[in-house]
């Protein structure tokens, strides 16, 4: 219950992130991967979207470096990290039953500490808007 309250408080505070100059949804869009989202929600996992604070290495390499670091954090679904250095955003899929989002954030931040980067939770996608069965089926066929 306490975790739910913390999450609710974080989500309520999310509009504050708009002060950075990007809409929350735009930051999410830059790291939204439909295959990752569909696969995660299909197995009752969730997808967390973060704003990344700190000096990121620029360009695609910066994004890839962030993905490698976040992807190595405990609790992150393998291969699910998506990062954009341009919009300073990160998304990862995770199993909330095994790793609550707050712990997940701590785990990722531990990996990012050497680069003096920290995270601000923007939103957790915990249920599909509505995904068509055929797309899910296609993804399942691909083993995602």
């Amino acid at each position, binding site marked *: 219950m306490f975790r739910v309250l913390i999450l609710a408080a974080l989500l309520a505070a999310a509009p504050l992130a708009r002060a950075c100059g990007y809409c929350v*949804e*735009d930051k999410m869009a*830059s790291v939204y991967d439909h*295959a990752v989202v569909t696969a995660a929600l299909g197995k009752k996992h969730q997808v967390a979207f973060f704003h990344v604070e700190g000096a990121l290495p620029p360009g695609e390499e910066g994004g890839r470096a962030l993905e490698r670091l976040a992807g190595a954090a405990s609790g992150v679904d393998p291969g699910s990290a998506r990062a*954009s250095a341009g919009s300073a955003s990160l998304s990862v899929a995770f199993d909330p039953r095994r790793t609550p989002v707050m712990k997940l954030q701590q785990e990722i931040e531990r990996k990012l500490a050497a680069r003096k980067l920290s995270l601000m939770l923007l939103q957790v996608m915990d249920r599909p*808007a509505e995904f*068509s069965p055929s797309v899910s089926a296609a993804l399942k066929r691909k083993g995602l």
Partner: protein
Amino acid sequence: MKTSLKSAILPFAAVLLAACSPSSAPPAADPYDISKMDLKPVPAKVSAERHTGKFAEGAALNYGAELKPLDPSPVKTIRLDTTHKIIEIAPGVKFSAWTFGDQVPGPTVRARVGDRIKFSMTNRSDEPVPGVRMTAAPMMHSMDFHAAMVSPQDKYRSIAPGQTIEFEFTLNYPGIFMYHCGTPMILEHIASGMYGAVIVEPRNGYPTKADREYVVIQSEFYAKLDPAKQKVDGSPLYVLDGDRLRAAQPTHTVFNGSHNIMVRNPLPAKSGERVRLFVLNVGPSRTSSFHVVGTIFDRAWMDGNPDNQFRGMQTVLLGSSNSAIVEFMIPEDGSYIMVDHHFANASQGAIGLVSTAAKPPAQDLEHHNMPASATPTDPDAIAGKQAFESKCLACHSIGQGKKLGPDLAGVSKRRSKDWLARWLKEPEKMLQTDADAKALLKEYNNLPMPNQSLSDAEIKQYQKYFEWIDAQPAGAVKPAATGH
């Protein structure tokens, strides 16, 4: 005495006249008085209740170039869902597009100042398609109406596949306004087809009466062959070329979403009629010099607002997301050629006709436009194509038979690479020593191939272009016109 009386009365008269002069009359009401505009915010709503059925709905929507009269309702409910779809941007060029309302450009909204727009949009980019999916993966999208005065963070937020956003706003200014997807990378979303126009008429209508009204939307496409070499109905699939997009080097510049679409289907008009065109350049990166050959714009209302009026204009210059209403008379029977007078753009398809004939003769266009063709993507081949089209077309064709010199279709297969390089480098030497060169000279009435003083790099570019041509399906590449 009379003189002194006059001199005494005149100053009083002047004061009285001054008091009655128009400058002292109360100022006319400002039609743009901000305090009287409707800026009442209503928060946007995002839900998981998705639309089904049609991808676009609303009495105020127009789906083609011809515009319906204004729907008089003061509240206009419109729905424009996003889809991913294969569209044909030129004959045989199937492009993986992202759309509003399942078409490119999206439907045109027609309304007037003071109208309330109630908008809703479902992100349906995830809807299943029959067969193998060749459209882009589902992604987040948004809607940015330039006609609205609202908080972008609230109304223009991106929504995930399956989500629906609803918001409303009142139209405060007349004009032709762009709408587009504003989700990062915006450049990619616009270049993939996510744009359209909102026409906002002045509260009391336009000051002139037009016989015909059409919308013309100019845009660029940046296409390359699908690296996975997928095919759509036997034609190669084209996808967005990110490198060309960032370098602002389009492969197609078109009116209303397709190369020469209004050449194939001219906009009808009759001699003596007054035509009103609503012209919008959505870019995303090029400027348009919009011109109609054979007439003069009696009125040009920049950004579509009659308060921004020019008279007797030959061209309107439209930056990305700029617009204009242009009105002109059709002086006599004929085909009046709409063209971007940046002819590099016109040659890529930004051309159309307003015609008094149902099927105008094809030669009307030959000097303005190149036929649609697939475009090479290799930088050397592109350079070779440009050089060929500017220097060689007077004497050579591609696939259209002999001119002063040979038809060069298949030349990279008829001749060895080395032979062709030597021929391009030093044709006069080849004519002295090479039997094939001598035969060519004889066949073409002793007209020698001139030495163009080409560098090795330029020769390589020509060869790359010829090789590219010969790799295309027969007849797919046609020669560009010679131009003036």
